[in-house]
């Protein structure tokens, strides 16, 4: 089977190629498309790599993916899952009248050679297993579904190309960068997360101090970022999905979308005044206490033990 894979980010590209080598039969041929150099792509199982350094927008990305997929007779097209790529994937699928499986976390071939894939649905409460009966299947795949492994040693042909000339139907007139956490939330080992239980923005300093002592970062639930705008990013289904060793939810009620974002956490601690809060019930350790009394005390204890 021939597969075309795309990501601007070489790390994501080699994760996807690794996943394919691990799950699909050996007659696989992988055609990669990216923006920058990839260190020994053949080791990660990529047979041919198209590098397009000046890829400027989603329409050019879409055009090059379509071109490579068509020329390589790919039956499967996989893009790294992010907001722009989900748009590109849906549009390619529409053009090809193809099935598009969003955020695929696992795949295999059925006995009849068709693709079977799984994805999370219902706010990550369930896994849907889908069979594709499409001539070509389009997918997006999230990061970290496998560790990249440099063990296939196929010879990789590398070609440098200019971006295709295409007409953009929308025009970007301005771009504002968001101020983001210094460590990506997905990579953080400890996350201290604040919710509506905090009365003022200044009070979040407590959470920052706690995070600092524990060597972690701060984050928040959706209302804190989306409604109150105290933070720029939030944890949850529509925000970041995280998997730290320790997740401390302070004053977060625990809406189902929030819980879906922390499924990968090893240990979850909830601190909430309300013993009935879903967050308390969905934690490994649920502390029923007033955060304004509990957190300062917790910080004090941690400080005194670390200086001993």
């Amino acid at each position, binding site marked *: 089977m021939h597969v075309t894979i795309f990501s601007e980010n070489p790390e994501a590209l080699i994760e996807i190629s690794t996943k394919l080598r691990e799950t699909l039969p050996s007659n696989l041929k992988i055609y990669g498309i990216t923006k920058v150099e990839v260190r020994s792509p053949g080791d990660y199982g990529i047979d041919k790599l198209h590098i397009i350094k000046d890829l400027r927008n989603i329409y050019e990305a879409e055009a090059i993916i379509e071109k490579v997929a068509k020329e390589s007779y790919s039956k499967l097209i996989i893009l790294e899952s992010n*907001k722009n790529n*989900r*748009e590109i994937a*849906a*549009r390619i699928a*529409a*053009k090809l*009248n193809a*099935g*598009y*499986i*969003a*955020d695929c976390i696992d795949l295999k071939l059925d006995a009849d050679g068709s693709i079977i894939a799984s994805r999370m*649905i*219902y*706010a990550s*409460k*369930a*896994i*849907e*297993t*889908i*069979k*594709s*009966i*499409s001539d070509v299947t389009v997918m997006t795949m999230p990061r970290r579904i496998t560790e990249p492994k440099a063990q296939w040693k196929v010879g990789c042909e590398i070609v440098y190309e200019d971006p295709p000339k295409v007409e953009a*139907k*929308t*025009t970007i*007139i*301005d*771009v*504002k*960068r*968001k101020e*983001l956490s210094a460590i990506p939330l997905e990579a953080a080992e400890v996350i201290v997360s604040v919710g509506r239980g905090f009365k003022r923005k200044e009070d979040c300093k407590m959470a920052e101090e706690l995070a600092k002592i524990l060597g972690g970062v701060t984050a928040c639930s959706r209302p804190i970022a*989306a409604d109150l705008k105290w933070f720029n990013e939030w944890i949850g*289904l*529509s925000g970041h999905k995280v998997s730290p060793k320790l997740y401390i939810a302070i004053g977060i009620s625990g*809406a*189902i979308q929030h819980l879906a974002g922390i*499924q990968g956490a*090893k*240990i979850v*601690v909830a601190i909430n005044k309300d*013993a009935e809060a879903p967050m308390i*019930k*969905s*934690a*490994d*350790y*649920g*502390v*029923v*206490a007033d955060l304004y*009394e*509990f957190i300062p*005390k917790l910080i004090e*204890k941690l400080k005194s*033990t670390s200086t001993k």
Partner: protein
Amino acid sequence: MEIAVCIKQALDVSQLKMDPKTLEPLIHVTPMKMSDIDRNALEEALRIREKHGGKVTAISVGGDKAKEVLREAIAMGADDAIHILNDIGEVDEHVISEALAEILKMKGPFQIILCGEMSIDKYTAQVGVRVAEKLGIPCITYARSISIEGEEVIAERDLEDRIEMVKAKMPTLITVTREINTPRLPQLIAILRAAKKPIETLNLSQLKVDLKSKLKTLSVKGIEVKRKGVLIKDLPVDKAVDELLNNLIREGVIKR
């Protein structure tokens, strides 16, 4: 200005329960509701109409019960509602988009078509984009604000690391995020009036579009996330802190 809004009646996931033994999601006893983000799309359509005049048409593909969300849309202020009755059983996003695009062509032209960025139950974020492609019009995804200037629509796209301001010539399809607005609550009188309003219904099987799904769901299995559920309560703050710290040290997630 002719505005259309595509609305899905979705599973109210917050009320979904699993069979404790088989982990099968108990879908048939779970209530349905208007997908939250589609509600934002409808609200935005109403606001555009309030500012620029025109008409708002709500469209939904679904079983007989999908009429409920269309009545709700009318109660919120939509002028018209069209129900594409799914009379052929489970279909995928390809078929849904084909049907929506066909109706939008039939009932249009619409200058603006709004959708939620994704549905709250399946989260595939593809129907809006597919519909735009079928109609051959521009698509702006993840809009957290929309303004109209002359023949153009300008929107702020909310991406992971940046906000992109983009413009496109109308007609345009826009998918919105939940941050774009706070939807209004329908008035009781409007709810009563909406109950009487006839809703145009067309059968999905009668549409001259490709009705063959490309994807087929084989199974849906619930996931059990096992948490320890240790409760630390009714302790003086001092003791509660110690209790928590001892546990976290034992778990090896903080260092002593």
